C-alpha cells in the first residue's frame, strides 16, 4: 500500500516536471498578462470615470513648476532651507524651557532629595549620572525633532518629496544610489536614526543599504550645535568682528556640504565594491498632489518618529550617563579612570590634532552627539584640576557664555587645529549608539551594522591625522 502510494507520488511529480517543460518558463508572465487584461475588461465595463480632468490639470501645472529647469532646484533649496530655519528657530525657546526645567530646576531638587536618605555616591551615580544624561538628551533632542519631523512629513504627504527624489535621481544614479536617498539624507540632517528608518521608502535592497550606511554623513541635529560653537570660538574669534559671523557660518556650511559630497563618493564606492552584487531594482511612483492631513500627520510623525527615536536615545543615555559619572569618580591610585585613560590616549589624540579628552568624550558619549560637548567640558575641567569651574566631578555642564567656554577649552590646551579637527571628527566618526542600534534593527545584519559604524570612524581618523600633520608641517 505504502509502496503503491510512493509510486503514485513519483509518477505525479514526473508528470508535473514534464508539463513544466511544455508550458515553458514564461507561464507566470502569461498568467499575469491575462489577469491584467481580464481585470481591464471588467473595469472598463463596470467602472464609470467621472470627469477628473480639472484636478489633474493642477497636478500637471505643479509638476511642470517643480521639475522646471529654472525653478526646480532653487525651489527645492528654498523649501529645505525653510524647514531647517523653522526647526532651528522654533526649537530654541522650548529647548531652553526644557533645559531650565529638567536641568537647572529639577536636577538640584532630585539631588537634594536623594541625598536626604542615601549616601553621596548613590545620589551622584543616579542623579548626576543617569538622570542628568537623560534630561540633557530630552532637552536638546525633543524640540527640534518635534518640529522637524511633522514639517517634513507634511511635505511628504503633500506629494512634493517624491518630486525631489525624481529631480535628484540623475545625480544619485551616477553615484550608484536611488533618488529617494536625497530624502533620507535630508531626514538625516534632523536625526540619523530617523534617516535610517526613513530608508524604508527605498524599495531596492542594494540602494537601501547604501542609503543606510551613508546616512551618517548627514550632519545631524545633535552635531549642528557643536559645529556652530566650535566654529565661532576657534574660527570666528580669530577674525575681525564684522566678518567673524559670516566666516564661521561658512565653515559650518562647508562641513555640511563636505558631508553631502562624501556621502555621494562613499555611495559610489560601496556600489562598485562590497555592494556590487546586491539585488537592485528601480521605480519611483509620483503620487498625485493632495492637501496634507495635518492632524493625522502631526500624530503619526510625533509617535512614529519623534517618540520612537527619543525613546531609543533615552534607553542608551541612561547607562552612558552612569558610565560618564563613574569614569570621573572611580579612582585607581588616587586618580580617576577618566584621567588615566586621557593621559594614556593623549599622545594619540595629539597625533590626530585632537586630544585625549575628546577621544574619551566620543567613546563615553556614544548614545547621543548632543552630550559630547558637555562631556568634553566636564572632562577638561577635571583634568585641568579645576573642577570648581564646572558643576562637580563627573557632572556634565554647559555654560551660558561662549567666552567662558572658550576659556575652558584654552585651559585644556586647545588650538585652532583642535577646533578644526573636532569639527571634522564630529562629521566623520561612528554613528551614535541609537543610530547603530537602528541600523541593526533595519538591516538585521551584524555585518552591515559594523561596516556602517567603522567606515566613517576610519575615514575620520585618517582625515584628522593628515589634516593635523599637514597643519603642523606648514604652521611651523
Amino acid at each position, binding site marked *: 500500500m505504502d509502496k503503491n502510494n510512493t509510486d503514485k507520488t513519483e509518477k505525479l511529480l514526473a508528470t508535473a516536471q514534464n508539463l513544466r517543460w511544455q508550458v515553458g518558463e514564461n507561464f507566470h508572465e502569461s498568467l499575469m498578462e491575462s489577469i491584467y487584461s481580464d481585470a481591464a475588461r471588467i473595469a472598463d465595463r463596470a467602472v464609470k470615470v467621472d470627469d477628473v480632468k480639472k484636478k489633474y490639470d493642477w497636478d500637471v501645472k505643479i509638476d511642470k513648476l517643480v521639475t522646471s529647469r529654472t525653478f526646480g532646484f532653487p525651489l527645492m533649496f528654498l523649501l529645505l532651507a525653510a524647514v531647517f530655519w523653522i526647526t532651528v528657530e522654533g526649537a530654541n525657546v522650548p529647548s531652553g524651557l526644557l533645559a531650565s526645567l529638567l536641568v537647572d530646576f529639577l536636577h538640584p531638587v532630585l539631588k537634594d532629595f536623594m541625598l536626604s536618605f542615601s549616601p553621596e555616591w548613590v545620589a551622584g551615580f543616579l542623579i548626576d549620572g543617569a538622570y542628568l544624561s537623560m534630561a540633557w538628551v530630552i532637552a536638546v533632542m525633543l524640540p527640534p525633532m518635534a518640529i522637524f519631523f511633522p514639517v517634513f512629513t507634511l511635505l511628504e504627504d503633500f506629494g512634493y518629496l517624491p518630486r525631489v527624489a525624481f529631480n535628484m*535621481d540623475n545625480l544619485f544614479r551616477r553615484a550608484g544610489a536611488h533618488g529617494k536617498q536625497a530624502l533620507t539624507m535630508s531626514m538625516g540632517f534632523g536625526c540619523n536614526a530617523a534617516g535610517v528608518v526613513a530608508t524604508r521608502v527605498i524599495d531596492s535592497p*542594494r540602494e537601501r543599504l547604501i542609503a543606510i550606511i551613508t546616512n551618517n554623513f548627514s550632519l545631524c541635529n545633535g552635531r549642528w550645535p557643536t559645529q556652530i560653537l566650535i566654529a565661532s570660538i576657534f574660527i570666528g574669534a580669530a577674525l575681525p568682528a564684522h566678518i567673524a559671523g559670516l566666516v564661521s557660518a561658512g565653515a559650518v556650511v562647508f562641513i555640511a556640504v563636505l558631508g553631502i559630497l562624501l556621502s555621494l563618493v562613499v555611495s559610489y564606492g560601496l556600489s562598485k*565594491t562590497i555592494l556590487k*552584487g546586491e539585488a537592485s531594482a*528601480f521605480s519611483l*511612483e509620483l503620487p498625485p498632489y493632495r492637501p496634507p492631513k495635518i492632524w493625522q500627520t502631526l500624530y503619526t510623525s510625533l509617535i512614529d518618529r519623534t517618540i520612537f527615536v527619543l525613546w531609543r536615545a533615552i534607553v542608551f543615555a541612561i547607562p552612558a550617563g552612569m558610565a560618564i559619572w563613574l569614569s570621573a569618580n572611580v579612582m585607581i591610585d588616587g586618580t580617576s579612570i577618566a584621567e588615566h585613560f586621557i593621559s594614556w590616549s593623549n599622545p594619540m589624540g595629539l597625533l590626530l590634532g585632537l586630544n585625549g579628552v575628546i577621544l574619551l568624550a566620543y567613546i563615553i558619549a556614544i548614545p547621543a552627539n548632543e552630550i559630547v560637548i558637555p562631556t568634553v567640558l566636564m572632562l577638561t575641567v577635571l583634568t585641568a584640576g579645576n573642577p570648581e569651574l564646572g558643576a562637580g566631578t563627573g557632572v556634565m555642564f554647559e555654560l551660558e557664555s561662549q567666552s567662558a567656554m572658550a576659556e575652558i577649552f584654552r585651559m585644556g590646551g586647545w588650538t585652532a587645529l583642535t577646533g578644526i579637527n573636532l569639527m571634522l571628527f564630529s562629521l566623520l566618526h561612528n554613528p551614535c549608539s541609537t543610530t547603530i542600534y537602528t541600523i541593526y534593527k533595519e538591516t538585521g545584519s551584524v555585518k552591515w551594522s559594523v561596516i556602517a559604524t567603522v567606515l566613517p570612524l576610519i575615514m575620520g581618523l*585618517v582625515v584628522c591625522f*593628515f589634516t593635523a*600633520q599637514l597643519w603642523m608641517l606648514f604652521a611651523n
Partner: protein
Amino acid sequence: MSDPLISLILGFIIVSALMAFFFPDKGLLAIWRRSAKDSKKEALEDALKHVYDCEYNSLSCTIRSIAGHLHTNMDKAAEVSARLESMGLITSNNQKLYLTDEGRSYALRIIRVHRLWEHYLADHSSVKETEWHSEAEIVEHTMTIEEADSLAAKMGNPLIDPHGDPIPTAGLELPELGGVHLNELEKGDIGRIIHLEDEPQAVFSQLIAMGLHNGMQIHIIDKRTDRIIFEANGEENILAPTLAANITVKKIEDQSEILDDFTPLSSLQVGETGIVKGISRALRGQQRRRLMDLGVVPGSKITPELVSRAGNPVAYRIRGASVALRKQHSDLIFVEKGE
C-alpha cells in the same frame, strides 16, 4: 612631538598598506582567500565536468583534452584522471575516458549547483552577466547539493539557467533542450534565442557586447559563407558563422508569437501614447517583476508624462498611476506607437 613630515610619510605608507591588504575584491586578503580554496578538489571536479561535457557533446575525451581544459601539463592531467579512476568515477578504454554511472551523477550535481547559482545571480543579484559564469565556477566547488536544493526551492525550482542551459533536476535528470545553431537557419527564418554558450569567455563577452540575450527574436536577413546578417529585436547585427555556432535558436512557427515592432519606450515623446508589446528578456528578476506589478504588461497603454530636470528618469502614466523609470530600463520595454 615627532616631525610632521615623517609622520605624514609614515601615515601615508600605513594607509596605503592597509588599503592594499583589505581592499574589497582586489586586496591581498581577498586574493589570499580566493587562493586558499581546495585546489585539488577543484581540479578533480573540473576534469570530471570536462569528461561529462565530452559525453554530452558526443566527443571523445582524453588525458590531453583534460590537460587543455585545466590549462595544465600532461603529467598533472594524468595524475588527475588516475585519481578519478581510482575513485570509480571514470573508466578508461583505449586512451579514451568514459564516465561511470557514479561519475555521471557526481558531474550532474556540480552542474546543478553551477547553473542554479547562475540563475540566482541573474535573478536575485545585480552581478553583471559577464561575471555569472566565473562566479559560479567558484561556488560549484563549495556549495553542497543540500544547500543547492534549498536554494532551488526558494527560487521556485527554475528549469533553465540564464544562458539557456537546462538545470539538472533534484533527481539529476537533464532534460533535452532542442533548438538549432544560428548558422543552421536559412535566410528569412525567424527564431528566438534559447541559449548563449558562456565558454569561451571572450566570445560570450562579444555576444553580450552586441546586446544579445536569451529570448531575443532573430530574423535572418542574409546568409553567406563568411557571415550571417540578422536582425535581433529590430537591430541589425553581423556575425561570423563560427561565432554564430555559439548561439542556439528555436524557430518560431506560430505567426502570432512574432513581434514586428521594437520601438523602445524611451523613444516616446511627452504626450505620445504607446501600447506595450513586451519587455526584453534582458530585464530579469526583481526589476522585471516590479515593472509587471506596476502594470507594464503587453496591451497596457503608456504615456510619457513628465521629464525630470536632467532628462532621466522620465515619469510615465500607466493604468492611472504616474511612475518614473530610468532610461536603462525604458530602453528595454517595447511599445507600438498609437494615435
